């Protein structure tokens, strides 16, 4: 039988999780040796589909063929045998093992490990050469940069014989430069005949790198396109089923006086490690100040210190005429009283309590407010009424204050939190990851609301891992790398390349110092 050039073929794959129809008769065919993008909003069913392919879940019905062979995996082991490898969004490593040890994890062979280690070393060196994936094999994984760790994940897949690689949001943790490097690797893999399935919600990546693209919406596969015959606007429309404003229109900022002045800040994180040093900036009323940077370069720590969660060890913050320093710390409650609202980065653990009802989540941080407390009595009816009114203001659905917070979708949870913080009419808004894990429709809504707050003369400090978000709504952008500010630019002058260079500042200086040592 002549081999067709189809690597993966799904026909009418169906999967329910209880009431949720995660995959509704999904069909997809991926050509061998191509890069195939799958886009869709959160919850569109992309991850479920890939998990079925990787043997984590079993389809309720439908047919799967891998390299023309009938395939029904009940474990990831079978998928690996069939030649499918997966690089997860969160890497699966034993952090203090070396690269080599991590790669052979799960295929150790006999009782003694030295033999398989030796074999793996030879094989990995060959693979690395072939695909341009050089990685040092004897370094502990935790000492590698994120980009390098991702390479190890890819190597792991190839070592196990993967001919089809599935990558789930691979660029979420990378700088633009690292992403470009990753795409170069994709090209090399493709030239060697490896098939790549790229799951992402970043349309730019789809346009840049893929050959074909499939769009999912609400569990259904709604379109297949050749990449060079489509455009981002069409894809976005397919993803959410209507036209969206990808670039939000906003008027020119009407910038007022500084309301938050940070001077030479030095901040330790929860583990007592210094994560922010020598950071100074001003946030002015009527302006959105974006803080860009690769995750883990001190932005999160800075945000927590601004909100009063972490103490500052040096320097000072002046907010609304109060000076905060190591001798005069203010707690989050006192900051709220000053008019500082905080939307935390970690929605699930910090912004809400999943077991609490929506009305109780809407009370977090404001449970001492006079208008809901009558003496010792926390008046439930006021709490509920308050929750109902902010739910209406932010179109949180369902509008049910008694529903458990965890029963709302990610977008509605986020809207509830934003509503809680915005509706108290604060002067300074500290916002972390406003649209993480939120669907496109809600993203548009949330960004508009942030701009509305700016236009109402509030000072806004925004942190986001989405460079596109920072660029589209900020008026001024500061870039952080390794705990320091590596650049400040006006949003109108910013482009991804310059921001990327600033975000990667440490990588460059580190390489320089390494060279100097040699």
């Amino acid at each position: 039988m002549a081999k067709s050039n189809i690597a993966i073929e799904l026909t009418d794959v169906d999967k329910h999780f209880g009431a949720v129809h995660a995959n509704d008769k999904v069909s997809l065919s991926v050509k061998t040796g191509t890069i195939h993008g799958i886009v869709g909003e959160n919850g569109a069913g992309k991850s479920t589909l890939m998990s079925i392919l990787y043997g984590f879940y079993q389809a309720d019905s439908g047919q799967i063929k891998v390299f023309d062979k009938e395939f029904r995996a009940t474990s990831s082991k079978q998928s690996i045998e069939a030649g499918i490898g997966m690089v997860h969004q969160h890497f699966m490593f034993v952090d203090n093992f070396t690269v080599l040890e991590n790669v052979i994890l799960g295929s150790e062979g006999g009782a003694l490990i030295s033999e398989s280690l030796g074999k793996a070393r030879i094989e990995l060196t060959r693979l690395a050469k072939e695909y341009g994936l050089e990685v040092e094999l004897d370094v502990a994984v935790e000492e590698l940069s994120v980009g390098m760790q991702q390479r190890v994940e890819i190597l792991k897949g190839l070592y196990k014989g993967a001919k089809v690689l599935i990558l789930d949001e691979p660029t979420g943790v990378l700088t633009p430069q690292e992403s470009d490097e990753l795409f170069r690797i994709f090209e090399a893999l493709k030239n060697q005949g490896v098939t790549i399935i790229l799951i992402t919600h970043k349309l730019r990546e789809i346009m840049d790198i893929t050959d074909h693209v499939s769009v999912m919406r609400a569990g259904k596969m709604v379109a297949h396109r050749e990449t060079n015959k489509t455009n981002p606007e069409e894809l976005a429309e397919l993803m959410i089923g209507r036209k969206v404003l990808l670039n939000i229109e906003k008027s020119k900022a009407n910038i007022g006086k500084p309301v938050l002045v940070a001077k030479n800040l030095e901040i330790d994180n929860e583990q007592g490690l210094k994560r922010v040093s020598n950071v100074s900036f001003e946030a002015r009323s009527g302006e959105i100040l974006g803080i860009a940077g690769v995750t883990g370069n001190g932005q999160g720590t800075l945000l927590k210190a601004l909100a009063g969660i972490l103490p500052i060890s040096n320097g000072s913050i002046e907010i609304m005429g109060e000076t905060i320093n190591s001798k005069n710390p203010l707690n989050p409650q006192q900051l709220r009283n000053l008019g500082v609202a905080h939307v935390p980065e970690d929605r699930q653990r910090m912004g809400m309590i999943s077991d609490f009802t929506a009305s109780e989540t809407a009370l977090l941080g404001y449970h001492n407010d006079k208008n809901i407390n009558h003496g010792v009595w926390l008046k439930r009816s006021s709490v509920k009424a308050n929750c109902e009114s902010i739910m209406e203001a932010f179109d949180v659905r369902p509008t049910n204050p008694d529903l458990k917070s965890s029963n709302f979708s990610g977008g509605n949870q986020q809207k509830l939190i934003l509503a809680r913080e915005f509706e108290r009419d604060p002067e300074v808004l500290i916002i972390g990851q406003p649209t993480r894990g939120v669907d496109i429709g809600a993203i548009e809504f949330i960004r508009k609301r942030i701009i509305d707050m700016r236009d109402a003369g509030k000072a806004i400090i925004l942190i986001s891992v989405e460079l596109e978000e920072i660029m589209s709504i900020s008026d001024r952008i500061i870039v952080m790398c390794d705990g320091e500010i590596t650049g400040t630019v006006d949003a109108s002058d910013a482009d991804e390349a310059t921001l990327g260079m600033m975000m990667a500042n440490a990588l460059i200086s580190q390489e320089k110092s390494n060279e100097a040592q040699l």
Partner: protein
Amino acid sequence: MTRDRRLSWINGLLLPLFNVLTAFLATAVVFILINVNPIEATKILIYGAFGYEEGIGYTLYYTTNFIFTGLAVAVAFHAGLFNIGGEGQAYIGGLGTALVALYIDPTLSAWLIIPLGIFGGLLFGAMWAIIPAYLQAYRGSHIVITTIMFNFLASALMVYLLVHVLREMGQMSPQSKDFPDSAWIPFVHEVFAGMGIKIAQSPLNLSIFIALIFSALVWFFLWHTRWGFAIRATGKSNDAAVYSGINPKKIIVVTMCISGALAGLVGINELMGVQHRLLLDFNYGYGFGGIAVALMGRNHPIGIIIAALLFGILYQGGMDLAFEMQNVSRHIIVVMQGLVILFCGGLEYLYRPILIRFLAPIET
């Protein structure tokens, strides 16, 4: 009925009910193994607990103690703390009550002495909990370990005090002198007699109403005050609490004080209510029983009252059972208690998947 409502019924009512029934079935197996007819035993147990006036009195008197310690465990639990120290807190709380009763001017009115005695119990119970709480909050010692150790410390301290300090002159046994009459909480049979109704004598006293009042207070405090909100928020998510401006360290200390104070009220029932003097081991078993009561009552005051009643029944009925049947020892109570803890605590969610499938299936 919406699915959410059904789920809360399953969690709140059906699960504990099924768990308790399973514990009873397991107890029946134990009875069969020791050649006791379980039906016969159940009859005796229920008759012992409810069959005659005195039995009812005893049942409710035990229930009172379990309500106090059950509430204590539940309050701590809402802040995410596992207070194993109810035993010691009850013991030292009793000391506080006894000191008020022994050293206050006995000519004062009972209307003053009894509230002061309650206050003494609350204060001493809280003080005994504050040290483990401080160590947990600010020094990182685990509260389970420290509260257990404080049970032993309490025990040793009370032996010392009763032997060397508080023992009545010329008395051989380690106990204090009797409290003055004005520090006695009236027995229920006395109150009834005062109204001209004659019922059998039992240790049941008006403390049971104090227990019910405190149940209501705990309910109001946890769900209808900002402090209760802060405690529950801390118990559910430390990060969210910090974010809200709540200081979890303070919450740990305050919550443990409240928890210890509630346990400290056991002395009101036992000492001011029944014994009328301070003596050794009046607290025995109630602190640990409180853990089971709170588990079974799902940390809600109403559940705790019901669970405490069940434990009261087991205590009183179990004693009668041991008395009536030769193969059954007094320790059968501990076995039953253990099985209830096993099925209500350890295997809490055993029936949940089945119940959900039949009673609240996911609508498709």
